[in-house]
């Protein structure tokens, strides 16, 4: 009996061991699952992070693709536009990209990256970039010949001449002066400053750089550095009157190939050879209709451009101008057959209703324009490609000019300290320009030949720096990631 009980107990113990073993195995299994899951979760989160980053790379690939395409042909439509069903594929995912060109030539590109694919997307990221023409016009005044500034004008911004610059007595220039082919002469009490409360000018360098001497009048001053450079190979001499900085006061450093007699607050380095300023040519203009979406063209038939002219282009456009003289706005190309002084576009007495761009091969005359206003802050761009015959003259009294303005051609600048209000003006001609009696503008004037009588007020405005059509490519100026 006892033996049978013991046997039964042993049998029951065997079963109990099995139960315990299974229980332990279960615990072990649960522990293993938990441990493996914890490790796996960390790995999975790391992998998700990698995929999230890859999605941005995919979107950036779309941006790169768009930039390449736009550089080759701005009129091409995107192959896989955002919101469509087509996707551009990469190894790390799909992308869609679209772009839109604004009237000022800037291009906004949107690219959306999808991981792993557009059809089966786990991650989506969007990038938006802004492409703008590279800044070409960085000077308030640019002349391909010598430049004389006198009669107390307001000049805010840098001044450039391929030859020499003469600044009259008492003139204050808030900016820098570059004379790439000659001397800079400052009259009595003339000042080159970094800021000027009277003209709301701030943040300028106030440097003077000449490929020759800097001749300063008594009590004239330069707030920044003065550099009198000399051509390569010139033997410099600390007592030479050539390539010298004479009289006046330099508040920054002074470096000259010749002598320095000016009072220098910074470091004075006479007899030191430095490279002269680079000679900048007048930026050349090339018309491309792709730069001007929405342009109204005269003639209205055929491809818009200089090769498609009309004998009535100016007269038709003039009719439009006269009918809308108080609120002119928009973008116009006017291509006249055999342009001459007889086919001059007359803007006498006009006002603006917003941005106004005129590109023409005909002469332009602003007449006796009084203050030009705009209903909204606007940008006026006038480009005349008219080149008067060699045997003609263009003076401040008129003649055969590419662009001419008579008495008090003044554009509403708004508050000078506010670059975003009023009218910013860009006037360009590869031919001859003449203004009589003090034109006043915020912007820049570029001309192959410039004749301006009785001084002028010009306040450089960077709004005109990126005017289209002058041969430079687009550059990326803003990069943003948007929330999808």
């Amino acid at each position, binding site marked *: 009996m006892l033996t049978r009980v013991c046997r039964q107990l042993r049998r029951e*113990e065997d079963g109990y*061991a099995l139960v*315990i*073993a299974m229980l*332990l195995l279960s*615990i*072990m299994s649960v*522990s*293993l699952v*938990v*441990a493996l899951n*914890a*490790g796996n*979760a*960390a790995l999975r*989160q*790391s992998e998700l*992070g990698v995929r*999230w980053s890859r999605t941005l790379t995919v979107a950036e690939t779309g941006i790169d693709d768009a930039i390449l395409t736009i550089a080759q042909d701005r009129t091409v439509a995107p192959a896989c536009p955002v919101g469509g069903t087509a996707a551009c594929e990469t190894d790390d995912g799909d992308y869609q990209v679209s772009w839109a060109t604004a009237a000022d030539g800037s291009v906004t590109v949107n690219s959306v990256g999808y991981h792993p694919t557009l059809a089966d997307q786990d991650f989506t990221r969007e990038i*938006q970039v802004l492409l703008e023409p590279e800044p070409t016009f960085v000077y308030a005044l640019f002349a391909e010949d010598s430049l004389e500034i006198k009669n107390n004008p307001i000049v805010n911004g840098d001044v450039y001449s391929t030859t020499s610059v003469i600044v009259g007595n008492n003139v204050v220039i808030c900016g820098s002066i570059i004379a790439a082919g000659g001397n800079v002469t400052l009259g009595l009490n003339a000042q080159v400053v970094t800021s000027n409360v009277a003209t709301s000018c701030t943040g300028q360098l106030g440097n003077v750089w000449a490929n020759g001497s800097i001749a300063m009048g008594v009590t004239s001053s330069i707030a920044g550095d003065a550099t009198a450079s000399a051509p390569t190979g010139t033997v410099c001499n600390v007592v030479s009157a050539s390539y010298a900085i004479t009289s006046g006061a330099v508040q920054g450093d002074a470096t000259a190939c010749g002598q320095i007699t000016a009072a220098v607050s910074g470091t004075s380095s006479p007899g030191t050879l430095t490279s002269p300023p680079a000679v900048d040519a007048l930026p050349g203009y090339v018309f491309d209709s792709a730069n001007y979406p929405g342009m109204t063209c005269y003639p209205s038939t055929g491809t818009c451009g200089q090769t498609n002219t009309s004998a009535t282009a100016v007269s038709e456009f003039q009719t439009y101008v006269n009918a809308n003289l108080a609120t002119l706005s928009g973008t116009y190309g006017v291509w006249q057959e055999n342009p001459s002084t007889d086919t001059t576009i007359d803007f006498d007495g006009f006002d603006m209703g917003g941005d106004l761009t005129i590109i023409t091969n005909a002469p332009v005359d602003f007449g006796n324009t009084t203050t030009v206003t705009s209903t909204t802050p606007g940008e006026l761009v006038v480009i005349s490609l008219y080149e008067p015959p060699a045997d003609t003259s263009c003076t401040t009294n008129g003649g055969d000019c590419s662009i001419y303005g008579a008495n008090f051609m003044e554009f509403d600048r708004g508050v000078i300290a506010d670059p975003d209000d009023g009218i910013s003006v860009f006037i360009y001609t590869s031919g001859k320009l003449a203004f009589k009696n003090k034109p006043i503008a915020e912007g820049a004037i570029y001309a192959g030949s410039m004749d301006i009588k009785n001084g002028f007020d010009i306040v450089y405005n960077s709004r005109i720096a990126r005017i289209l059509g002058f041969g430079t490519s687009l550059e*990326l*100026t*803003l*990069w*943003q*990631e*948007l*929330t999808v």
Partner: protein
Amino acid sequence: MAILSLSATTVLAVAQRVFEDTNTVVDRRDVFNDGRVALDELTKHLRQAESVDAASTASAVTMPTYLDGTGATVVWRAVGTSAPYALERSTDGGVSYVEVLDSLASPEVFTYVQHDGVTDQVTVAFQLTTSTTVVELTTDIYLRNV
């Protein structure tokens, strides 16, 4: 019975060790995850920044940047008197802050790199305290709008 008891003890010890290791792994995972999320957001702000404020230091960076296309001044800073330090973010120019991370072993997070005299690259290094050790997350960010 004795063998069974020994086995049970061993298994339970192993199980306990597994749980401890699991906790360690989970802790590291969570710390890494928090760090990664913070790093993603900080990277996004820096990548779009137009500049880095000159007053920025190794423990604080101020930048004009964009939040979903809208300009904003964003500040990130490490605060605290001893480890663990907290990482805070302000999207209103430093008026108010939100804590993003609370496990920094060092407040020195930012290193600035200049090219041609312009700060256009920032290295961000998070030294993160876990229950057992300090781990580091590092990234170099090129400022696209400088």
